């Protein structure tokens, strides 16, 4: 990873930092997801295992949240592209 120094080293460091940040963001998103789905799906502790209803609920909650994130990403990219286009037009 740190093969050469100088400008290329700087780039590698920067990339490594970005990857770490992405990883951290992912971990945070993941633990938020678990927390939210747990809160929405599990309400009592008469047993220490998830029953079928809770299992299905958590699975569906996860998939729904994933699809939501994807759609948000798509819309964001679309809006961002529009914004860049508008800014480019104004710059002329």
């Amino acid at each position, binding site marked *: *990873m*740190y*093969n050469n120094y100088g400008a290329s080293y700087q780039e590698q460091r920067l990339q490594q930092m970005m990857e*770490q940040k992405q*990883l*951290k963001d992912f*971990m*945070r998103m*993941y*633990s938020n*997801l*678990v*927390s939210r*789905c*747990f*809160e929405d*799906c*599990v*309400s009592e*502790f*008469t*047993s*220490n*295992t*998830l029953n079928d209803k*809770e*299992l299905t609920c*958590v*699975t569906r909650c*996860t*998939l729904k949240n*994933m699809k939501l994130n994807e759609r948000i990403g798509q819309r964001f990219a679309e809006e961002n592209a529009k914004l860049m286009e508008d800014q480019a037009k104004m710059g002329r």
Partner: protein
Amino acid sequence: MSSFGGFNSAASTPGVARKEDVMQQVKQELALANAQELINSINKQCYKMCIPSPGTSLSSSEQASLSRCMDKYLASWDTVSRAYVARVTQENH
């Protein structure tokens, strides 16, 4: 939880560190941060759900509730993980 036991003595000089050592260290740091985050979440969630009115000590029923809550939370973690991986691998095919 046993996945982050033991730290290898990876070479500290950048030029010598092998990619595998760096990857291993990153994985361990990640697992540790992961575990800390997880314990925090469990604490917060289960306290909220199992201890409606705090007293001066934990009653045995509260303790039992907390224990089961943690088991269920970890089971949820597994379930989310499985659903997540299934969805991601489905997309890549």
